[in-house]
């Protein structure tokens, strides 16, 4: 795990918060971190939650990524979209796709949590634009 990964994971965990059972939160405290998640224990179907973050990159090379975990069903998924595209030669592990954004460049990154079944879920998708 490289230095970047450690930093982004730390900020990802810091961004996590708990909503009431069954409720869904899509938040963007700043343009650097955002999350979309469904709290545990809520039966749901065919739902989709999106959060979008935009801004101007401040660091030399930035990465946008998303991760998902504690998925109870393989039919649940997270979509990641970046207006700048996701670079084909992805850096990091498969869980951390990224796109490079130059300092001063305007960007928009969207993260979507899509739930396709009626499972009880503990789902969360996090994103970060940092360096």
């Amino acid at each position, binding site marked *: 795990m490289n230095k970047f990964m450690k930093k982004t994971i730390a900020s990802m965990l810091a961004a996590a918060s708990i909503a009431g059972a069954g409720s869904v939160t899509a938040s963007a405290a700043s343009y650097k971190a955002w999350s979309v998640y469904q709290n545990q224990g809520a039966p749901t179907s065919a739902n989709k939650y999106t959060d979008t973050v*935009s801004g*101007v990159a401040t660091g030399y090379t930035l990465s946008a990524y998303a991760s*998902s975990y504690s998925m109870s069903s393989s039919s649940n*998924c997270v979509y*990641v979209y970046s207006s700048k*595209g996701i670079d084909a030669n992805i850096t990091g592990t*498969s869980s951390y796709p990224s796109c490079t954004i130059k*300092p*001063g*460049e305007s960007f928009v990154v969207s993260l979507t949590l899509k739930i396709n079944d009626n499972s009880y879920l503990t789902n969360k998708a996090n994103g970060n634009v940092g360096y």
Partner: protein
Amino acid sequence: MRKNKALNLIVFAFIMLMCSSCADVPENVKNDMSQYNGQADIFMNQNEYQYIDVSDIAEDFKSALEGEYGQFEVSKEIIIPNSENICTMEFEYVDNFHENADEIFKIFFDDEVLKKQTIIDDDSMQRMVTREFYNKQDKVYCCVGNNGFTAMLLPSAFDNSFSRSSTVIKTYHIDRNEISEDAYTLSDGECTVKEAVNFVNDWLNTKWKPFESYYDFSVKTVMVRELKEKCYFDFVVEKYYNGIPLDEISDSVMSEDENGCPYVKHTFSSIRINMMNCCEISSFTSLNGIIKPIQSASVNSILSLESALKLCQSTFSDFKAMIISDINIKYSLLPQYNYLGEEITYGNVIIINSAESDTQAGVKVLSRPVWEIIIDVPSSEYGTSSEFNQYGDIKKYICIDVQTGEIYYRLSLSEVLKFAK
């Protein structure tokens, strides 16, 4: 001339045909305003809404401002725009702009600084080729991309970079004639808003203009930000094509296609400059890159402002009182790019690997002239004075296509804050 008249008649007849076959604002549109963000396809009732000749805009504007529009109160301070050359436009992101890099470096840095820099050509990214240098030791950075993206940092702005997190202590709307003699203490001493604005406007229209010759440039807004017990000016610059500004407020508005795939529907074209020392371009960014006009067709008649405001009144009927702070005609910008790409799956994560970025060199951008109706959001609506205020210039907006009456809007405070500049 005769051909133009005939064409106008055909267009007019087509619009009238559309209007006559459509109902008033649908109830489901009225009832679906809970998110206060999105678009509404409205077709106008011909008896209720009027079209005017573009040469009558000033007169129409003046009389419209005296009208009453229910929940919308129109500010008496609004300046009548000079908008007689209205067109539907097509733009395109420039290509090979990085070939200007060495010339651009020279407008920001002197030879002594440039001699010490290691300039690299970066073609490692799929979507943009750049020529650039980034020197942490000297605290200088400049990057020029093939799509017109240009960003620069002088030592005075290097640590702050392009951050927008500093507290905004005052905002000046220069486009509303708020050109002030107020002075602030920048890093190297006192500087008035007026001299700073004059310097930036002059610099843009002389030094920068050769690289983006299609436009005139004008500071739209100045935010005075506080940093380490000093201030700096944060400028939002508008680009004018034949007297009409390009959209600078719709900060990459996302939409979804019929399959739920996200894409950027509305984009913007603007320049952002920070001034840390008096009369110095301390940081510069063209944000998305540069679009150049490639096609235009004149528009001879437009929806009258009175009709546009009535349309707002009937469409947003569930809204409480709102004060309209500003009204303009501007060019909306709709990038036409291949956003679908391919889906790559990693476990439960699906990445939309876009074939194109919305700002990539060569991407076409369709443009429609729209009435832009601005609703300023006072800071009391999104925080108290004791709270950290990094926003500074918060605006809700409603845009109405001057030909079709199609509406898109951003009236949700949370969305406005998310995309705040």
